[in-house]
């Protein structure tokens, strides 16, 4: 069975606000990154979706579940649940433009995922050329979190 | 009645009259026997399930309400464990487990199989509680009764060679009518039915004990 949230309303803005705040704490203090793998991984997942514009989802029923009578009768009984991520996407786009204006989504995501990985593994974060990158990434997640609050 | 030697066993297998499948290694084939490996299912008698082995529980009346009691008694009697490869099952001292062979065995009408324990395991305390006789025409996995006669638990891994089967040629092919349920196949270890055929000697329902 699909793990559908028991709350029908979408709480993705809250989720990503929390995750973005956790990421900012990691950028402020990279030594805690190894303990924050879960939030960093979930942000990396979001970025992956952003890279491929893979946001709209529906909760797919099993092939035969979809055919069984209770699901099949009328369109009004549609089980499709599309997660609307407009607020999150807007906040991402705004942060992208503000901090990394001019680079493609592909390059943005590669850069950010690389930095998240370094923080999660506490490796390669002391190099001088990395510090500026970390600062930019921090600004990105601050902007992202602000965008979510105002959405 | 004579036991088949290796060359004859192999000939019968090649001609597909006798089937032991799969044979994973040439080491399984001895001078006059084939080693059998442990399968993946263990039926253990559930100690709390029954107070004693009561033949009355094996008898089945015509009463439809009896169906539930009969099925429940049978299913509650054993705990069933499925153990994938590379996982271990511990057989504790004094415990009896019904297990299938990994191999599927199919005997022609003129052969009978006799299954005994491999001596290397017997020396660790693992016993095949009774020598298992496989009737001509049999098709399926072989059910083995494994008992731990030692002092400490024995770790058993599915796939291990624990028994061996010898094939005896009968003085004539068994008659087709005697190959009972010749097209039935045994996929699981088979629990015994100690009452079948001896119902006349059971206490009748309602009679004083």
């Amino acid at each position, binding site marked *: 069975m699909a793990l559908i949230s028991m709350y029908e309303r979408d709480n993705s803005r809250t*989720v990503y606000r929390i*995750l973005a705040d956790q990421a900012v704490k990691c950028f402020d203090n990279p030594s805690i990154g190894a303990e924050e793998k879960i939030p960093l991984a979930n942000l990396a997942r979001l970025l992956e979706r952003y890279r491929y514009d893979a946001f709209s989802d529906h909760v797919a029923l099993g092939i035969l579940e979809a055919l069984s009578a209770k699901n099949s009768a009328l369109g009004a009984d549609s089980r499709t649940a599309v997660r609307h991520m407009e607020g999150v996407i807007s906040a991402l786009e705004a942060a992208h433009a503000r901090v990394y204006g001019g680079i493609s989504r592909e390059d943005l995501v590669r850069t950010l995922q690389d930095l998240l990985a370094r923080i999660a593994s506490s490796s390669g974060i002391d190099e001088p050329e990395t510090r500026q990158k970390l600062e930019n990434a921090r600004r990105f997640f601050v902007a992202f979190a602000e965008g979510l609050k105002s959405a | 009645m004579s036991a088949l030697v290796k060359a004859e066993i192999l000939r019968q297998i090649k001609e597909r009259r006798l089937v032991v499948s799969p044979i994973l290694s040439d080491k399984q084939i001895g001078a006059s026997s084939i080693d059998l490996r442990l399968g993946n299912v263990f039926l253990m008698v559930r100690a709390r399930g029954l107070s004693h082995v009561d033949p009355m529980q094996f008898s089945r009346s015509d009463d439809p309400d009896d169906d539930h009691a009969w099925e429940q008694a049978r299913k509650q009697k054993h705990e069933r464990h499925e153990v994938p490869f590379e996982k271990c099952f511990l057989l504790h001292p004094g415990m009896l487990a019904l297990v299938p062979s990994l191999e599927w065995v199919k005997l022609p009408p003129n052969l009978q199989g006799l299954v005994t324990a491999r001596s290397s395991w017997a020396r660790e305390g693992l016993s095949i509680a009774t020598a298992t006789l496989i009737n001509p025409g049999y098709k399926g996995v072989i059910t083995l009764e494994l008992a731990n006669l030692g002092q400490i638990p024995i770790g058993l891994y599915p796939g291990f060679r624990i028994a061996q089967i010898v094939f005896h040629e009968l003085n004539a092919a068994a008659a087709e009518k005697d190959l009972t349920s010749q097209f039935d196949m045994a996929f699981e270890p088979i629990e015994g039915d100690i009452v079948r055929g001896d119902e006349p000697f059971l206490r009748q329902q309602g009679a004083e004990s």
Partner: protein
Amino acid sequence: MDTREFLLNECENVRNTLREVLRHEYAAGDSKAFYREFCERLANLKKLIEPVDPADASALATFASELSLLSRLVHQIERSHAGEFSWPFSECLQCLAVPICKENIGLPTEGDPIIRVYADGGLDSYKINLENDLSVLNVGRRIFTIVFPRTLKHQVLLHAIFGHEIGHAAWTIPSHRAKLKSEVLQPLYAHGRLTSTSSATAWLRDLNAPRPVEEIRSQYPDPYYTEIDRDQWDSWFQEFMCDLFGMVTFGPSFLAAHQTLLLTLDPTGYRWGPQHPPYASRKAMLWRASKHLGWDTYGNSFDDAILSANVGHFRDAYIGASIPGPWEDLFSQAQVATAVDALVAILRAASSEPFGMPDEATLLQLVRMLGERVPPCGSDLSGAEKPSNRAIDFRHILFGGWIASISADSRPEAKGPELEFSEINKLCEMGILHQRAIDLHDTRKKEAVS
């Protein structure tokens, strides 16, 4: 007790329940990895709840939702007992499905999902679920759930339907989704009667539609029933894509399972719903895909005439003997061929091997063993004294089973009454188990030598 305190209390309840489920035995998957992942999620959540502002209602609601999800996960692991589903088949399915479900998000801890398998319900319980809910806060390694119908434990031939479910799981990987959209879906809806919601609606309302469609329309006269909205249109194309996925992963066995199961739930073959197009249109697409893959002529040149004839019977029964009708036939040969080729390439790129037809010798061995009432596998002692066992794809065992099911009594070695479908399934299930034993033994032996 305020909300925050209650949530912390609930964290402890969930932790205790996790401890209790370790009393049970679970065969499939790695319970250690699951336990560790679960503990990390719970610890992360607790760390978030502890400092939360009691006035932050949105955060509190989010945490409550997360805890609820964790509770359900724990409950589901309790049901994962090896005796309730075919674990040999499950292991084979995982080898097929997991490579395509790997993430690549750059972080070192991610990658392979954690597998959970359990059994539930009946026919309509087939499901693969890969965690992909974007409003979930708290996922380290994703959990990949396979659900087998409890009542169909041994019916491995029907389990070929899982190929469709693998498609849904692959969709959750963004990089796959991008390719599936552009290279599989886009060619399918670029032309034809389903190119838009309005054309799809017109198709359902076509006055020249087959009689069963007319009967269904009169059963549901509400015009809403024949109006396709964007959600429904998306869902339908998902189903078409996943059907093709099933074909290229499981081969002709998928077609047989697909037909058997779907026509059981909809014997007309023409009903549609919010999440599924009519079976007849799916079959028409699969017919074209079979043609493209050469399945319509497979077996014609076999030396063994009986086997060739039996493959023909299978073809007639499950692939289709004739061109589909104009209403059902939604896609051109070129559209379907493009989609299939793209799917095969995606699978190969993900190191998941697409289905390849067995050679005649392999298929003959498998069908012959079934006819002799022996579990079909690569066991072979026909040479000298040493076994010359070989690796056989479990999907070929399923295909052999379907061939035998349609022609069980036509071989000389098939003595006695015709094998029942349930017996063929049990023999094939055991054949898959035996093949696992052969593969494990041979692999370990090679490792020991090297």
